[in-house]
């Protein structure tokens, strides 16, 4: 079996174990091992990519993990086009974040802990993408959840951080609830959990039905939707998106790596991986598209009014992920993965940029106290600008190609919700551009609104921080080169490369439509940028006016549509009081234990009464005995 493939996940694992156990002694040197190992993984991944490019696929089992009766699952690796792309994304961004963290986390307590967790995450993510069966996917799925839990709660003494970590894990669990049931259904229908045989026979479950409690369901739809539950949890789609913004409590590199570039895209990866199943169910595809579209708009509108820079970026992440789901929903999986790829870079860049700003601002994250940072931190400024352009879909930048492909596909796709998705997508393209540049202008232009003390300490971040920024900037600009559509003279390598796994979209847009759609979305983007410039540079009082004009909308968006509050009230509070008052106090204490303790108490009472009979008076004893005699005599007659 190819060693390089084993090295990719297991080197980070080793570095995790080593750093976690001995990091305390290593102290500030504890970042070396993780960085080295992740770089090796990166190189291996690149090697693997070319292996695949030359047609060397791998599907091998390491050992049998669980085997019970007919059920056999092994730990095994599958290397194909999709995997190789994911490998590149994960390892490259992970290594950059590793390096970046050396600067960012400098002098933090638990420095070694941070790096060991990063390695753990890298390992889990790689296991997730490399697995050749659903159970290993699930393993990675949960393991990344764990590492995100640990990293979000890195500053565990902050209650909000600890809460956020817990929230992330539990919300994901809710998604996994569906996911694991999906796995069971898959096993029930295919008798195995390995990709290969499943996708080999997938066509046979087309319009199969299965019955549960008298309800008859379409089998592919059921499987697809159950799996999609998992994806919704991981990729923070409505209504399970609530954990991602809170996840910003974690250190910024973590947000960049886990909550922007890699882990949150696992949901998209899952859908893409299972595309043969999804393809069989129009219902599922429609659901995905609609959920994607709604989330897309929803998140973007929230992002408009947030002032915490990381939260703005977080919401933009949610809406970008929604784009990817739209892509999957309309059957343009390769487009989705393409957007995943590009998004990884520019979004990571945005986050790391934020990180660099936060460093400079001494962990001040509120945009209200920023402004005019341009002259203090040029590199951050330029890289951030590139990222913003990319996300706004300015032609030539990575974001432009991927997003427009998605929109085009949505427009022409046979899926019912396609058009709707296209409309929302285009709208959101504008909004995205607007809030990205709103953020950009507020941070870098205008007057500095912070304290004098902060102002004195403003300076550009060290090399170890800026170099990764620049490298990512390259990605953010150039990542699009892999998938330039034919209409723009490209040869759509991306689609061709992934075709073996993700198949070929049924309908392709004609060049004309594609051009038109492009122009529309570009205009939307441009308009957004212009509006941002107008509102935040030209006439800064304008936003206040609008706020006063539409206070309701403003409040709604500022408070994220009160979703958290609703959940808090409707689910958590009610659950807790249900548990305390109904289950514990009523059932357990008032009902069961009263009975349990009541019986002895009653017997005790009876005993107290019965002993009264023994009143020490012989005559009474004799009377009772006489009564007994009579009783026995009567019984005797009865039986005679």
């Amino acid at each position, binding site marked *: 079996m190819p060693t390089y493939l084993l090295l990719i996940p297991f080197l980070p694992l080793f570095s995790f174990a080593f750093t976690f156990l001995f990091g305390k002694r290593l102290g500030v040197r504890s970042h070396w091992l993780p960085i080295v190992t992740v770089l090796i993984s990166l190189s291996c991944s690149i090697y693997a990519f070319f292996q695949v490019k030359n047609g060397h696929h791998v599907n091998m089992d390491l050992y049998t993990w669980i085997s019970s009766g007919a059920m056999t699952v092994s730990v095994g690796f599958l290397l194909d086009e999709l995997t190789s792309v994911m490998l590149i994304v994960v390892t490259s961004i992970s290594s950059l974040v590793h390096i970046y963290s050396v600067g960012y986390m400098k002098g933090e307590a638990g420095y070694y802990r941070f790096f060991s967790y990063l390695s753990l995450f890298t390992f889990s993510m790689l296991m997730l993408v490399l697995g050749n069966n659903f159970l290993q996917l699930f393993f990675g799925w949960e393991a990344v959840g764990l590492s995100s839990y640990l990293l979000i709660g890195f500053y565990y003494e902050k209650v909000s951080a600890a809460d956020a970590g817990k929230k992330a894990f539990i919300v994901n669990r809710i998604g996994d609830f569906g996911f694991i049931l999906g796995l069971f259904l898959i096993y029930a229908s295919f008798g195995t959990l390995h990709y290969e045989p499943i996708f080999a026979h997938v066509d046979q479950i087309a319009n199969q039905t299965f019955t549960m409690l008298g309800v008859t369901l379409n089998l592919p739809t059921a499987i697809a939707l159950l799996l999609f539950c998992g994806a919704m949890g991981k990729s923070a789609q409505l209504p399970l998106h609530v954990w991602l913004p809170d996840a910003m409590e974690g250190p910024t590199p973590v947000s960049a790596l886990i909550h922007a570039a890699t882990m949150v895209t696992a949901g998209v990866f899952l859908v893409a991986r299972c595309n043969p199943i999804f393809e069989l169910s129009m219902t599922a595809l429609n659901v995905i598209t609609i959920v994607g579209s709604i989330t897309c708009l929803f998140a973007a509108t929230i992002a408009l009014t947030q002032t915490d820079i990381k939260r703005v970026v977080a919401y933009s992440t949610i809406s970008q992920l929604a784009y990817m789901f739209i892509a999957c929903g309309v059957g343009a999986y390769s487009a989705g993965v393409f957007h995943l790829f590009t998004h990884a870079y520019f979004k990571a860049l945005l986050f790391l940029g934020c990180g660099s700003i936060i460093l400079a601002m001494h962990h001040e994250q509120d945009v209200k106290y920023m402004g005019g940072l341009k002259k203090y931190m040029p590199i951050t400024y330029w890289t951030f600008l590139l990222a913003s352009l990319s996300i706004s879909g300015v032609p030539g930048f990575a974001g432009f190609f991927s997003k427009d492909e998605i929109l085009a596909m949505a427009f022409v796709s046979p899926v019912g919700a396609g058009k709707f998705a296209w409309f929302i997508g285009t709208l959101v393209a504008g909004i995205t551009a607007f809030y990205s540049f709103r953020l950009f202008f507020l941070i870098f232009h205008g007057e500095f609104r912070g304290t004098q003390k902060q102002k004195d300490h403003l300076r550009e971040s060290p090399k170890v921080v800026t170099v990764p920024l620049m490298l990512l900037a390259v990605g953010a600009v150039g990542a699009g080169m892999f998938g330039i559509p034919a209409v723009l003279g490209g040869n759509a390598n991306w689609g061709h490369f992934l075709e073996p796994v993700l198949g070929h979209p049924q309908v392709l847009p004609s060049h004309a439509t594609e051009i038109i759609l492009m122009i529309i979305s570009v205009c939307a983007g441009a308009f957004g940028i212009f509006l941002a410039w107008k509102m935040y540079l030209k006439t800064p009082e304008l936003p206040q006016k609008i706020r006063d004009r539409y206070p309701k909308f403003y409040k709604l968006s500022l408070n994220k549509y009160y979703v958290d509050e609703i959940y808090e009230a409707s689910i958590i509070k009610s659950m807790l009081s249900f548990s305390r008052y109904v289950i514990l106090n009523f059932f357990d204490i008032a009902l069961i234990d009263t009975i349990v303790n009541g019986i002895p108490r009653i017997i005790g009472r009876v005993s107290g009464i019965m*002993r009264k009979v023994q009143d*020490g*008076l012989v*005559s009474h004893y*004799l*009377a009772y005995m006489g009564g007994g005699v009579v009783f026995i005599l009567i019984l005797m007659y009865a039986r005679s």
Partner: protein
Amino acid sequence: MIPLSWYMVLAAILFSVGIYGFLVRRNIIIMFLSLELMLNAVNLNLVAMSHYLDSLRGHTFTFFIITVAAAEAAIGLGLVIVLFRNKKTVYVDHINELKG
């Protein structure tokens, strides 16, 4: 000729009178007397039966019962005397220290 049942009725009545006395009187000596009444009822039964059964078993049994009655009387009265020494009473409802 007297039928056996007459004797038995008499014995039964005597026995229940004895029980009655044994239950309701509070003077232990009277209770003993009632006990003797019961024993006599039994004796009457036995003698009458053995008469009609043409056997002596009943008679001998009666003989033994009388013996035992004597013995019992001796011990019972001894107990009563002890009781009287301790508590200066022979009333059965005064001895209810042990109860519950």
